[in-house]
């Protein structure tokens, strides 16, 4: 089994280098700066962890969790990058997204403050896995809200952005599920995560490699005369049309 772990580690390492080299070659890196910073960070983190594991084993847990949290923070930057690039040509949806993400952020902050004030021991008793699960859950909720807005408003995904979203969404989704079950089972199945974690991340890296192989610009909205209209006029027309549809539907059940 040690061979499998090592193989997964080497594959991940190779794919990270391939992604970074390819990004330099195709000059795609400036378009997705936070995403490539994340890949660079994970690569540096892997080398650092390996070095510490071999030469200073006592420091490993400290280094592991410190780098893990920095990774989560840069990961929040990826969510921001998806928002920034995906909605650059869509100011209306960007406005909705800003409101939605602000509401989510303040709800998470309020929940953390309430928990800390009602039980001051919370900070001391919460394990690193608890905190990481909480941060990753907030990321997952933010990604769900953002992607739902993309789907509701029919925002076209460019190939590159789609790849970033697919890979990161998959990795966060599996991580949250696993971090929730891990402590509940008394860390009995920790060894499964030792394989599942690198496997999921390897899958995400493969998706990124395929989708970010060549640069592709984010599609812009199709120009249309009606796009220039003021929002109030558009909303009033939609309201009128929905009202008419409601009246039409009501004819069926109106006694």
């Amino acid at each position, binding site marked *: 089994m040690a061979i499998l772990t090592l193989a997964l580690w080497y594959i991940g390492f190779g794919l990270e280098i391939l992604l970074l080299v390819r990004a330099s070659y195709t000059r795609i890196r400036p378009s997705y700066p936070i995403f490539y910073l994340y890949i660079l960070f994970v690569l540096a983190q892997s080398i650092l962890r390996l070095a510490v594991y071999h030469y200073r084993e006592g420091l490993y847990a400290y280094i592991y969790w410190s780098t893990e949290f920095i990774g989560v923070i840069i990961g929040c930057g990826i969510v921001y990058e998806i928002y920034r690039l995906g909605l650059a040509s869509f100011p209306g949806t960007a406005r909705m997204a800003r409101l939605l993400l602000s509401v989510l952020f303040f709800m998470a902050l309020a929940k953390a403050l309430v928990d800390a004030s009602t039980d001051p021991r919370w900070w001391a008793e919460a394990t690193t896995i608890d905190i990481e699960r909480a941060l990753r859950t907030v990321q997952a909720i933010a*990604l769900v809200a953002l992607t739902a807005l993309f789907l509701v408003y029919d925002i076209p995904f460019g190939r590159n952005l789609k790849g970033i979203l697919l890979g990161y969404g998959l990795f966060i989704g599996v991580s949250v599920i696993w971090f929730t079950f891990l402590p509940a089972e008394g860390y009995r199945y920790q060894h499964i995560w030792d394989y599942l974690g690198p496997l999921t991340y390897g899958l995400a890296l493969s998706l990124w490699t395929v989708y970010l192989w060549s640069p592709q610009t984010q599609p812009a909205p199709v120009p249309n005369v009606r796009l220039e209209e003021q929002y109030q006029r558009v909303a009033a027309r939609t309201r009128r*049309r929905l009202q008419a549809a409601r009246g039409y539907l009501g004819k069926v059940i109106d006694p």
Partner: protein
Amino acid sequence: MIPATVSILAAALLLLIVFRVWKSTCLPEAGLPYGSDDAEESVSCPKEIVSAIFGSDDWEYISKLNLPELQAVFLRERKSVARAWVRATAGSIHRIMREHAQIARCSSDLEISDELGLYVRYLSLQAACAALQLSIGLVGPVRVRYLSEYVYVLSTRLSYAHWVMKDAMESRELQGIWQG
């Protein structure tokens, strides 16, 4: 700390939505043929036919013939026509919102409260279509109108009872004030 159920729900939703994005195409979008302002124009079936589908006239005529096989065929056919109409109506409502979203997403002056109001209205209409589909499946199109008539009569009676009760309570309160 965030409850475990919230985490699991968020993760499951995220994986579902990622799957949905994976299935979507990367092709540049084609422009939608923007519809007219009239909703009834996009709902293709004329009003008279809709009234006939859900009306009881045809059913009363068929019932008088006293042919059980014909009655069964009639009910089956009428049910499928009614369901197709509800599906088409739900589709046209969806199209209205899709056209709206295509314009609203580019509006820098988008009003969030108006937008949320429109989506609430849209969701309530879609829910009505789903309820109608369910009712047609359970009781058939002809009885849907009977059912709505029954609900209407019931709600009228309820509101009358409520009005009488409210009136009685108010007069009792007034008596209390006078006596006090």
